[in-house]
């Protein structure tokens, strides 16, 4: 009987040590789920979800603190992708966070700009070019359309404009047949 106890105890210790060692040796750095969620989010960095940016929101979802329906720029597509990733049911967008809308960018009216740099400080992706008392301008291709620069502007010279689409970016419309009437939300 003692042999059996001894053998089992030895085995338990051996495996325990092995497991303990591998837990340290093969520890996963960072949170892979957060990275995956972050990859799905549109990176607008607008903060409409209630978090400081897309990464903090991704962390909140990963920790179970936030729901997957708080990203208005992402809309239905992002909710669906998050639901697929996390194995949850898709839910409609939380109206409290805002409405889904087509992507826009902003423009600075350069005649009115006084060069206060407040918008530069607000821009989460460094898409505004300018210096103190110098005219500022937006780099169109970098602007995510978060609109965070509009509120700080003391002279209200920042406007929302639609994204310019040329013929190469044109998309075929979804065929609408009599059978299936166009849905209200086709995002």
């Amino acid at each position, binding site marked *: 009987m003692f042999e059996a106890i001894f053998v089992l105890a030895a085995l338990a210790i051996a495996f325990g040590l092995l497991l303990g060692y591998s837990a340290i040796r093969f520890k996963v750095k960072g949170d892979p789920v957060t990275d995956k969620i972050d990859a799905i989010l549109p990176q607008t960095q607008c903060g409409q979800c209630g978090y400081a940016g897309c*990464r903090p929101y991704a962390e909140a979802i990963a920790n179970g603190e936030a729901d997957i329906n708080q990203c208005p720029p992402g809309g239905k597509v992002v909710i669906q992708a998050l639901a697929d990733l996390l194995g949850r049911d898709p839910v409609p967008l939380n109206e409290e966070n805002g409405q889904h809308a087509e992507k826009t960018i902003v423009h600075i009216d350069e005649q009115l700009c006084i060069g206060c740099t407040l918008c530069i400080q607000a821009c989460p992706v460094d898409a505004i070019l300018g210096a103190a008392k110098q005219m500022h301008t937006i780099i169109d291709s970098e602007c995510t359309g978060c609109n965070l620069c509009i509120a700080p502007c003391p002279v209200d010279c920042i406007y929302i404009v639609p994204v310019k689409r040329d013929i190469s970016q044109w998309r075929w419309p979804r065929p609408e047949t009599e059978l299936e009437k166009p849905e209200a939300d086709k995002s």
Partner: protein
Amino acid sequence: MKRLLRHFHGGLRLPEHKKISMQELISEAPIPPRLILPLQQHIGEPAESLVSIGERVLKGQMIAEAKSFVSVPVHASTSGRIICIENRPIPHPSGLNAPCIILEADGKDETIDMQAHDYHHMEPAELRHLLRDAGIVGLGGAGFPSFIKLNPGPGNRVNTLLLNGAECEPYITCDAMLMQQRPHEIIKGLLVMKQALQAEHCIIAVEDNKRLAYTTLVNALEEHQPHKIEIIQVPTLYPTGGEKQLIKVVTGVEVPANNRPVNVGIVCHNVATAAAVYDATQGQPLISRVVTVTGDAVKHPRNLQVRFGTPFRFLLDQCGFDERAEIDLIMGGPLMGFKIADQQVPVIKTSNCVLSLKREPRRPAMPCIRCADCVLVCPVQLLPQQLYWYARAQDFDRIQDYHLFDCIECGACAYVCPSHIPLVNYYRFAKTEIWAQEEEKKKADLARQRHEFRQYRLERGKKENEERRQRKKELLKKTGNKSDDRDAQKTAIEAAMARVQARRAEQEQQRKNTDNLNLAQKKVIEEIEARRKKTND
């Protein structure tokens, strides 16, 4: 030697409607008063304008140059004056406008000095350069710059150069007529292409419903001995004219998905492209093409040699267009073509056919009954009903598992669908959506990168400030800020105050701008001072 022909999967036998436009030889279309030349008439990046408004240009002069690799220049189709460069409707399924150069013809049709090149002694790279400068793109309908397809690339050896004369889509006859009328140019162009590719042998494939074109080519070939050119007839079946389908029929080789034919040692070009290549070696850039003008609303259907930039409406009027007819105007064939909303759009390099079809009441789409008729006809062996299902559900991951991007949009599935579902439109919708999503993803990655760098920068700034403060504190501690030298501090403060006082007094003095006054001014000041004294008293 009789070549053993293979079959591709599926395919359709369609009513041809080809005879109506083959009653007459190709004739030269008149030059319209104004030509609209889009800067993009090909796949790739648009060309960039070289001309200014008011400039006079000659026929064949380069008016827009290719700035990036996948691009070709645009040439003036006739002589005249540039009157503006602006956005105009172009033949595109979107019906959107794009930048065009508008050329007012002067009727003289003066040509630049066109010099024939001795192509027999040119290096392949030189030939490609020549063809690029001549603005040559695939004239079969896709419009991919030909010089790129004539470059096998490192590590690829071209075994077979296949010339596509299948022209399988109903109504279109421009290639058939060209083969009947200009067989020598086609063969000579083919030899130039062969030289550029260093190909071993050449095949011209013609569908067996074009007997006359076939016999003309065979007769013409006898004059071009010695050569390694084979002319073969392939069975008439839609879509034999598809590049990968024709390769399968002629050589039995199936080009793998996501691969180009050159990867299996085959290059395929259109017969009209070959003729254009020959013209380029004679010094003439691509400024016109054969266009089939046909359909229900055209009294006099035929093939015309049309200058690029000719408005569709002008061309239709040459062929007895009935403007009151209820028609859909289509560029291309009835299956792969697309509707044109504006009749003023110009003929461009990819316009092989201007087709007017009687507008038929749209048959309502019914639910998919999963009859799998579409599966039977699909030339790429896809599952169209599955693709439809996922496109409708906008499940763009699953649709790619079903190889959406191998679809050649031939329209055979939609043609046979008993429920009249516009299947191809669903696939086109899904393709463009996926491309747009990929584009958005790229932008999102860029935004993430920039945001992370900004965070890092702010963090770094904060840390540096903190460190600086820390250093100062320590420095202060070292030099000592003790209570026993209060007196020293006091004297320092007093000295500073005295300095400030002195400076203030000096400024006060300076502010009185009473130097260099003339007598009158002094008098006025004295009067004021006197008044002030009086009131003070």
